[in-house]
């Protein structure tokens, strides 16, 4: 998976600076070439947050730092960051320049840490890995270098009904804010307290400090984020339960919540099962009231609605959307494409998970980070009826070529604004339906 690629749908390791931006009042400090922050800002768009984008400090490597090293410049920049910006957590991230010339930044960061500063360093040279993987590097660095300083006040696994949630990757999942809010609401609905750690629903650094107290961890992801759950198991003895896809709509959300319920009680949580089931039932009934109301439209609208879909997204969304659209909307998933550079060792399991959605049809899944190649494949496919493509802004042009309907639901996309919309949960399913048919109906003039 390391050949040339076209139309990347993810970015390089330093893109995980957005995971820092997503922690309230945290600041990424870049020790990198001049354009790195700009590139990441351009990839995600509208992603400045509290102190990202043009606000983030950066050493902006020049020839001088490439030749002589840039640690002095970094020290100066960090020291002045404290004077200029009012932040609760500082995370120093390295770029390719620092990585190749071999700047040893940890001793510099350690000087500030010894001074009591809440500062963390992490190596994220772009060539190291993708931002999907670097997200785990950043989170684990914060755990090791920051959270670990608060272990005494936060005894390991001391709150039986509290969990840490690792799900949406901030910004890489365009719906991360809304999704985290909805996960939290749903999990609270079954009786848990939840650390979501990122975004306005989190309690900022205070919540990070309390990570050790959680009884267990929930990982919602087919592969990314797994090193975080494994790391927490190792350092705090917290077990984790993994759900392989984004739970969208009623079936998947119920399955997700029941998996968590069962796991929680195995781990000694004391959740009221009847109350939890009552919550789930209420949510389901409200959901099906809408689907019931909608069904006539789905069945009878005579001017044409999509009957099949190609999804070009990360593996978690490909799974979640395919299952949802097949069973709860009636749109048949044809060839699907995971463009998140899924490591080989997870691919078989993910393909099996997708196939589990149907015992009647084969749903082919291709793992291909070269999204230009994916587009060429889709160009060559022909299915009867009206088609739908769910993907990034790049795919709008493809959809137009093929005369397919299009829903922009992945980065990068200049064609859609997302603020706090969620695709997760019962309500997320309804929102996906609104978005798809909103786009379809907008084609009628």
């Amino acid at each position: 998976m390391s050949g040339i690629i076209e139309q990347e749908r993810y970015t390089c390791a330093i893109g995980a600076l957005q995971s820092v931006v997503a922690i309230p009042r945290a600041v990424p400090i870049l020790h990198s070439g001049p354009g790195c922050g700009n590139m990441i800002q351009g990839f995600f768009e509208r992603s400045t947050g509290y102190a990202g984008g043009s606000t983030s400090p950066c050493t902006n490597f020049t020839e001088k730092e490439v030749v002589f090293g840039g640690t002095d410049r970094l020290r100066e920049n960090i020291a002045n960051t404290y004077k200029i910006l009012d932040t609760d957590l500082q995370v120093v991230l390295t770029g390719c320049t620092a990585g190749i010339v071999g700047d040893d930044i940890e001793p510099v960061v350690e000087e500030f840490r010894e001074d009591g500063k809440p500062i963390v360093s992490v190596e994220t040279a772009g060539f190291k890995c993708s931002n999907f993987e670097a997200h785990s590097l950043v989170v684990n660095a914060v755990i090791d270098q920051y959270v670990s300083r608060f272990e005494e006040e936060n005894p390991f696994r001391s709150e039986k009904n509290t969990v840490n949630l690792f799900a949406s990757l901030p910004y890489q999942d365009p719906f991360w804010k809304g999704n985290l809010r909805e996960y939290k609401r749903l999990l609270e609905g079954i009786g848990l307290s939840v650390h979501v750690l990122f975004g306005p629903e989190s309690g900022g650094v205070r919540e990070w400090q309390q990570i050790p107290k959680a009884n267990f961890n929930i990982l919602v992801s087919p592969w990314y984020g797994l090193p975080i759950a494994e790391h927490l198991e190792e350092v705090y003895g917290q077990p984790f339960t993994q759900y392989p896809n984004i739970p969208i709509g009623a079936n998947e959300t119920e399955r997700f919540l029941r998996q968590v319920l069962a796991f929680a009680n195995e781990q000694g949580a004391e959740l009221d099962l009847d109350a939890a089931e009552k919550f789930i039932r209420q949510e389901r009934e409200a959901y099906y009231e809408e689907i019931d109301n909608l069904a006539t439209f789905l069945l009878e609208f005579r001017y044409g609605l999509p009957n099949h879909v190609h999804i070009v997204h990360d593996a978690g969304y490909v799974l979640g959307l395919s299952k949802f659209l097949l069973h709860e909307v009636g749109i048949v998933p044809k060839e699907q494409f995971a463009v998140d550079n899924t490591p080989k060792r997870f691919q078989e399991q993910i393909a099996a998970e997708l196939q589990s959605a149907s015992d009647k049809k084969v749903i082919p899944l291709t793992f291909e980070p070269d999204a230009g190649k994916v587009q060429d494949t889709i160009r060559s496919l022909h299915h009867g009826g009206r088609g739908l493509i769910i993907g990034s802004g790049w795919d709008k042009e493809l959809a137009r070529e093929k005369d397919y309907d299009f829903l922009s639901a992945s980065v990068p996309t200049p064609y859609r604004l997302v603020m706090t919309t969620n695709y997760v949960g019962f309500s997320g399913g309804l929102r996906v339906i609104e978005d798809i048919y909103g786009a379809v109906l907008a084609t009628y003039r």
Partner: protein
Amino acid sequence: MSKINLQIPEVSIREIRLGSITGFQGGAEELVNCSRCGLKDKSRSFSQCLGCSTSQAACMVILVQDAAVISHGPVGCSSCFHEFAFTYRVNSPLRGVEHPTQRKIFSTNLQETDTVYGGAQKLAKGIHEVYERTHPNAVFVLTTCAAGIIGDDVESVCGEAEEELGVPVIAIFCEGFRSKVWTTGFDASYHAIARKLIQPARERRSDMINVINFWGSDVFGDWFEAFGAKPNYITPYSTIENLRRSSEAAASVQICPTLGSYLGAALEQEFGVPEINAAPPYGIAQTDRWFRALGKLLHKEDEAERLIASKRAEYLPKIEALREKLRGKTAYVTAGAAHGHALLNLLGELGMKAKGAAIFHHDPIYDNENEESDLLVNRVKEYGDVPNFNICNKQEFELVNMLNRLQPDVLLARHGGMTLWGAKLGIPSLLIGDEHFSMGYEGIVRYGERILETIENDEFVKNLKQHAINPYTKWWLDQEPYTFLKGGAAK
């Protein structure tokens, strides 16, 4: 000595070629005077994220209609390029491109092992693959910091691929760390295009004028009609064939001397296309000068005079009416060099007071070594000095401090990310995306009307101010804005 040297693969960076700087505080007049006798750059002991040469180089080739572009680096170094694909599609109607094709943008996706063993082979293989997949009329290869430091011989790889494939495969050297002035990226693309693509003229076409530009609206078509000529917009929306033949134009004009400095000079010095040295048409006097220079060069002085007279008759009363409404209003300008100068000229023309400016860099002279091209010189001469003139490469912390201090009636910006702080401070803020919007006599009217509209409709910014989130410390906002500029106002 000529600043253009097409013999070597890499362009000489602006700091060396032009003596450009990225740190200065003082007045515009002082800077203009210093520019003629050697400027010394200042560095900062605190800095925020800058722009990068590779993006500037990229936009000049991604928008070439029939080319493919490869970023030779880790995948992150091309991650903002999708924005140029959007630009290409959205602005194509402005340039009469009826069926805009998908942009072909690739990354060699360098991995850790490549930084150890080199990425040249991967690039060579990649160029062949890109050719097979897209059949472009040329392939442009952009270098990045990683490729530069590991020392891949990109020039040779491109040369070999060009021989094998039979289409131009052109290396553009635009590593971010090479220059603090990211507009060096434009020069890098132009250098490569002039060196490898533009052919010696077979004929001289009196009806074609090169317009070195971005992707703004087609205002030049109308203007040139009076001279019996058509614009040849380069390089965005051009084709490989049109670029090859840009040497045959009667003249070249630039929408912004910072952008077009290198290509304009290269076309004149290496291919004999005369450049209009008059700075671009911003403000009445400069617009007069620009049309006269154009008329003179095309031997159509009478046409120029007629055009000037009719445009003046039409627009001067409107400009005067705007002056009545805008007189005494204050503004702060933040923009790249030259375009920022252009906006300062417009402010002068509209009778507004410039309270200060943060301009991303400063070129003391352009590649044509002609002072007539300098819009800042023009500004100072025509409309007077600009106080608080800061050369500041998008250092938001300085901008915030300065705006908070000066509280102008309006903030005029040219680049993304800068208006936010005006709005957060409750200052009406205006960014015009179309580079050609405020040119010429009609541009003064258009821009003046937008300024007026922006100042009048301040409800949004006033509300935002009440709820603005501010990561800057109170301490910082109380300091002098240049505290962290070494040799600046404070210790």
